[in-house]
C-alpha cells in the first residue's frame, strides 16, 4: 500500500496531457512586465528608473523586509515605464516594464550549465544567497524561501521534504523538471540539507509519475540520507501539511508551521532554482510553465522568462482555440481565472489552463441534501457545509471557533458537492472577514 495523507482527499481526473513533452525554452519576449509583488509578504521596492539600462539578472526591485524577496531583471534591455498593470489577481499592480534589447545576444543564448556537484558555500552563505537571488516557493504559494530556512534555535529539525507531488490535474511542470533536471535537483537537495543541518531528506512523488519515482530512486541509490517516497494519487497531497502527513505521519498543529514538527518542505522547482542560484549564480528569472487545455493544438511545457505576457504562451501553443470560455492561471483546483491575457507570468505561475465551453461554467446551485461528502473529503477535518452556513448568516465568531481559518482552500468540498454549492467561495469570504475582525481587535 502506498502512503497518503490521513484525512479526506479527492480524485479528480488527472488529464496530464503534457507529461511526455520536453520543456522548450522560449526566446525572450519583446517586452517584459515584472510586478514587484510576486511573492507572499511585503512587495519589493523598485530601485531602477525610467530609461535605465538593465542587465540580465540585475536587481531591479529590492526586498522590502524579512518576508519579501528581491526581483531581478529577466532580460537585458531598457526600463521603459514604471506602471500599474493588471496581474492575475485582476487588480492593477505596480510593475516594471522593460523593453528587451534585440541586439544583446545574452537575451537569446541558451544557457545550459554543466552539472556542478561540489557545494562550497557555508550554510549561512547559502541562506543569504537564496535570499539575495529572489528564490520563492515555486509550487504556487510563492513564500520567500530564505524565511523557511531561518530556523529558530529552539526548533529542532530532522527532515527536509521535497514536494514533487504535483497533485493539480493538467499541470506537468514539476514532473518534466524532475525528469530533465534530476541530477541537479539531487544536488539542490544536498544544498538545502547542508543549510538546514538535517541529515534526512524525502522526495515525495505521486505514483502517477512513475518514471520520476524510478529516476530518483536510481539517482539516490548511493545516497543513504535521501529517500524517495512513492505516494498514492490523491488531491491535495501537494499541500504542505498533507505531504508531511503522508510521508512522516506527523500532523502540523492547528495554526502551526511545518517547523513545529521538525520539517521544512520545498517544491522541486524551488530546489532546482536554489541549485542554479548557489552553483551557478543565477537569480530566479525564469520558470517552467505548463500551457495546456483539451482543445489546444499543441499543449506544452516551457521555460519562460518572468514577466512574459500570457498571450505569448498561448500563441506558442497554437493560439486561443474556438469556444474558449475560461483562462486559468495555475491548475484547475486552485488556479485563478483571468480575463486579460496581457497578465504576465510571475514566479508563482505553474501553468496556464485553457478551458472550453462545456467545462467552464458552474452548475445550478441546489439545496444542501446533507450528504456529508464535503465533510468526508475535507483534508483538514472541517465541516464545509457548516462554515458556509455560518458565513451566510454572518456568524463569523462561531465560524472561527469551528476552525474556519485552518481551511487550506483546496476546493475539495466545492468539487464534490452534488448540489453545486459554492462552499469554498463562502469559506474564503468568511476567512477574510474573520481575519479582518481579528486584526481590528489587536
Amino acid at each position, binding site marked *: 500500500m502506498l502512503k497518503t495523507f490521513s*484525512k479526506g482527499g479527492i480524485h479528480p481526473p488527472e488529464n496530464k496531457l503534457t507529461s511526455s513533452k520536453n520543456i522548450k525554452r522560449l526566446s525572450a519576449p519583446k517586452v517584459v512586465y515584472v510586478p514587484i509583488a510576486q511573492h507572499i509578504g511585503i512587495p519589493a521596492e523598485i530601485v531602477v528608473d525610467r530609461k535605465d539600462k538593465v542587465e540580465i539578472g540585475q536587481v531591479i526591485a529590492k526586498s522590502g523586509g524579512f518576508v519579501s524577496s528581491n526581483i531581478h531583471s529577466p532580460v537585458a534591455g531598457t526600463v521603459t515605464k514604471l506602471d500599474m498593470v493588471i496581474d492575475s489577481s485582476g487588480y492593477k499592480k505596480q510593475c516594471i516594464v522593460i523593453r528587451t534589447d534585440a541586439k544583446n545576444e545574452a537575451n537569446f543564448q541558451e544557457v545550459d550549465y554543466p552539472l556542478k556537484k561540489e557545494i562550497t558555500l557555508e550554510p549561512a552563505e547559502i541562506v543569504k544567497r537564496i535570499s539575495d537571488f529572489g528564490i520563492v516557493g515555486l509550487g504556487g504559494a510563492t513564500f520567500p524561501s530564505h524565511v523557511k530556512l531561518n530556523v529558530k534555535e529552539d526548533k529542532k529539525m530532522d527532515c527536509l521534504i521535497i514536494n514533487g507531488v504535483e497533485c493539480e490535474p493538467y499541470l506537468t511542470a514539476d514532473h518534466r523538471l524532475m525528469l530533465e533536471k534530476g541530477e541537479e535537483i539531487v544536488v539542490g537537495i544536498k544544498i538545502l540539507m547542508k543549510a538546514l543541518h538535517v541529515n534526512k531528506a524525502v522526495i515525495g512523488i505521486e505514483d502517477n509519475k512513475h518514471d520520476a519515482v524510478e529516476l530518483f530512486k536510481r539517482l539516490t541509490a548511493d545516497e543513504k540520507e535521501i529517500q524517495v517516497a512513492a505516494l498514492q494519487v490523491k488531491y491535495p497531497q501537494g499541500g504542505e501539511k498533507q505531504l508531511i502527513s503522508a510521508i512522516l505521519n506527523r500532523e502540523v*498543529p492547528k495554526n502551526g508551521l511545518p517547523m513545529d514538527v521538525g520539517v521544512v518542505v520545498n517544491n522541486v522547482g524551488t530546489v532546482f532554482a536554489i541549485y542554479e542560484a548557489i552553483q551557478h549564480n543565477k537569480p530566479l528569472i525564469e520558470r517552467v510553465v505548463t500551457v495546456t487545455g483539451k482543445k489546444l493544438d499543441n499543449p506544452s511545457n516551457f521555460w519562460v522568462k518572468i514577466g512574459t505576457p500570457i498571450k505569448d504562451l498561448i500563441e506558442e501553443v497554437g493560439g486561443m482555440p474556438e469556444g474558449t*470560455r475560461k483562462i486559468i492561471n495555475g491548475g484547475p*483546483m486552485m488556479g485563478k481565472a483571468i480575463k486579460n491575457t496581457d497578465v504576465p507570468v510571475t514566479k508563482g505561475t505553474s501553468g496556464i*489552463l485553457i478551458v472550453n465551453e462545456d467545462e467552464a461554467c458552474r452548475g445550478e446551485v441546489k439545496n444542501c441534501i*446533507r450528504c456529508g461528502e464535503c465533510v468526508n473529503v475535507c483534508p483538514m477535518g472541517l465541516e464545509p457545509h457548516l462554515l458556509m452556513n455560518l458565513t451566510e448568516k454572518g456568524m463569523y465568531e462561531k465560524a472561527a471557533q469551528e476552525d474556519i481559518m485552518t481551511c487550506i482552500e483546496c476546493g475539495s468540498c466545492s468539487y464534490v458537492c452534488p448540489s453545486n454549492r459554492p462552499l469554498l467561495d463562502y469559506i474564503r469570504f468568511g476567512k477574510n472577514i474573520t481575519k479582518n475582525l481579528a486584526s481590528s481587535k489587536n
Partner: protein
Amino acid sequence: MDSPPIVISASPHLHSERTSKKIMYDVVIALVPAFLVSLYVFGFNALITTSIAIISCLLFEYLIQKYLMKTEVTITDGSALLTGLLLAFNVPAGLPIWMIIVGSLVAIGIAKLSFGGLGFNVFNPALVGRVFLLVCFPVQMTLWPMAVVNNTTIADAVSGATTLGIIKEGLQFGGTMTELSAKIPSSIDMLLGITGGSLGEMSAIALLLGGLYLMIRKVISWHIPVTVLLTMGIMTGIFWSIDPEHYANPVIHLLSGGAILGAFFMATDMVTSPMTKKGMVIFAIGIGLITVIIRFYGAYPEGISFAILIMNAFVPLINSFFKPRRFGSKIKAKIM
C-alpha cells in the same frame, strides 16, 4: 464580439460528476429488485399502491410548490419520487387508495415542504407518512395481504399476520417460541420474501442486493446499515440466549419486519441522518436499541419506523457533538 465572453469564477474550476439527482435515482434503482419481488408476490396490488403513492407525492409537491409556496417546482430532482416509492414500500400492498393519498400529503406537505423542502426536513418524510397512517388507520395498516404467488386480482388478497405480529401476539397469550415456531415462516422464506408484511420489506435478499448497489455506488456507507443490524442482532441475541422460549432468535428479528428496509433505505436518508461517520454509528446504535425495545415491550410488533423518527430528532444534536477530528489535533510528533 462573436464568441461568448470569458468566464471568471473562483477556484475550484472542476466539479465531480456527482449530482443530487443522480444520487436520488441511484436509490430508486436500488429499490427495483425489492419492487420486482413485491410485484411477483402481491401482483397488481403492489403496482397500484406504488403508482398511487408516487403520483400523489409528485402531484402534491407540484401543487404546493407552485400554488401555495410559489417557489420553484422541483419535482424532477427525484426526491419526491423517492418519497412516494418508500412510502409505498412501508404500507401493506392494497391499502385503500385514498389512504395512500392522505399518507402522501402528510409525507410531502407536512414532513417535507413545511420544513422548507428538500434538505431542510428533520424527519424522514416517507416514515412520517407511514406512521401517520399507522396511528390513524391501525386496522387497515395492519391488514397484511399474505404472499399469494401470481395473484393478479385486487379483490381476493388473503390477509394474515406478519412474523413479528404472530410472535408478539403468541407470547402475549402465554405461548412459547417452540410452539410459535411452527406458525412463522422459515428463514429461507423470509430471505426470499414468501411472508407477510409491508409492500417493500418482503425479500431480504432483494433489499440487500439494492443496499450493496448503493454501497458500491458510494451513495451510502456501511456505517448506518451495518451498525443498525449489528445492534439489533446483539440485543436480541442477548435476550434470546437468556430466555429462548420468550424471545425470538436474532435471525428471525433481522429477517422479519422492516429491519433491512429500514437499515439500508430509511435510516440512511442523507437529509435526516448525521454527517460524520462517528455520528452515523451513534445514530444507528440508537435506532437498533429503540427498535428492539419497541419489539419486545412496545404496543406495536415492529418499531423501526418509530426508532428512525426518534433518532432523526437527535441528528442536529449528534452533528454538533460528534464532529470530525480536526487535522492538526494529533499528539505532537517525536522529532529525532
